[in-house]
């Protein structure tokens, strides 16, 4: 039996239901289930979970993330994931003989790349595979909890962003977003829009609202508009 409605705003310690199954960001005491974070509650038949608004990234198998090389070890690299947990990438990901070669010809400290998270253990040590180096461009950080909104249902939001801003955009589940374009103003514009999405992530109908907002901005700023669609 639920004590809250689906999509209601909840806080840590708030009771969600009795005799229901506790999902993510919930905890159980006797027969009662509570939220452990500030977020939106989702109820589904006998099951309840909370989608938090905030929180640092914690490695999850299957996630595509943007990592930064932070250190070397003999057979690979330590990777910063903007998390409380460091990732590891084995030399085998870039070469057949990682022990015979000088791995710095592939990746050096400070290099940025996307990769997939695999093999996460109980203390969140994880490995990264299928790296793809990101050259140039800039990286911004948003709250990892807002990444699903930036991607949107069936990639609706991210596709619209790429379309309308004409930038290359890569989104990591760990809250890092890489943007690249010849025109720095376009990148600035795209970052501005992404920050707005982050701020308003909990509003319904956001994809349409953002689409309209972009159109408005471009319309109100003719010089900008011309620049945008010059090429």
């Amino acid at each position, binding site marked *: 039996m639920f004590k809250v409605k689906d999509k209601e*705003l909840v*806080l*840590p*310690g708030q009771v969600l239901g009795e005799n229901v199954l506790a999902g993510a*960001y919930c*905890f159980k005491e006797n027969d009662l289930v*509570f939220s*452990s*974070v*500030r977020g939106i509650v989702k109820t589904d038949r006998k099951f309840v979970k909370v989608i*938090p*608004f*905030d*929180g*640092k990234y*914690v490695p999850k198998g299957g996630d595509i993330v943007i990592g930064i090389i932070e250190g070397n070890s003999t057979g690979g690299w330590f990777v910063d994931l903007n*998390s*409380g*947990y*460091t990732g590891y990438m084995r030399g085998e990901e870039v070469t057949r003989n990682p022990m015979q070669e000088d791995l710095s010809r592939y990746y050096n400290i400070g290099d940025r790349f996307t990769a997939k998270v695999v093999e996460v253990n*109980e*203390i*969140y040590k994880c490995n990264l595979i299928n790296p793809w180096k990101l050259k140039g461009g800039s990286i911004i950080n948003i709250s990892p*909890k807002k990444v699903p909104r930036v991607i949107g249902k069936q990639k609706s939001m991210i596709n619209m962003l790429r379309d309308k801003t004409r930038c290359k955009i890569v989104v990591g589940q760990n809250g890092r977003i890489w943007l690249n374009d010849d025109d720095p103003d376009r990148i600035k514009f795209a970052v501005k829009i992404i920050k707005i999405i982050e701020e*308003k992530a*909990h*509003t319904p109908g956001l994809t349409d609202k953002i689409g309209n907002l972009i159109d408005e901005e471009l319309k109100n700023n003719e010089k900008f508009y011309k620049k945008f669609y010059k090429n």
Partner: protein
Amino acid sequence: MDEKTRLVDENGIRLDGRKPDELREIEMKVGVLKQADGSAYVKWGKNIALASVYGPRECHPQWQRDSRKAVLRCTYNMAPFSVDDRKRPGPDRRSYEISKVTTEALESVVLVENYPNTAIDVFIEILQADAGTRCVGLTAASIALADAGIPMKDIVAACASGKADGEIILDLFKDEDNKGEADLPIAIVPRTGEIALMQLDGDLTREEFEKAFDMAVAGGLKVNEIQKETLLKEYKKE
């Protein structure tokens, strides 16, 4: 104040116009700092506290790491300009003690098992002090943790009561605290009413203690209402 100025007059009104069980004015905000993962600002009477949370993050030094859970580390610090007579910068014995009891109070609710091997650091800065700063700091730290998305069993709220001029009163301000006969800061887990922090300085009978205790708990529950309102505010305005 040279002569025995009364702290509570014959109508039960205190020097700042409050009734014995009345709280000072409290204002709270979250998400006030950019770098921190979570943050909060609390203005409580003339007290001003800022709390920031970093974490879960890598735990340094390595020897402090715990593979079963996150290590929660809270530091309480008073700015040199926060008090009447400048306070030498740096931790003193009082701030070590307050840091310890604050950490322990929050440990009672933070779900540290969720993040083994990491550290969750909480920094409480008292920017202006007018008695009750440990309660103000802990109240701010609580909502800063919620702002950072750190999973907790509840939002801990703190409040102090005491005795002045023979009367049991709530939320003493500096003048009352200096001349008071007892000081009882407590922190509650609002959902269960259990006590996560409690200290007493003074000379109270069992009955006086119970009265002061009940008053502080009631004050804490009111503080908790403001905490919850503050956390919901930025998401409710749409």
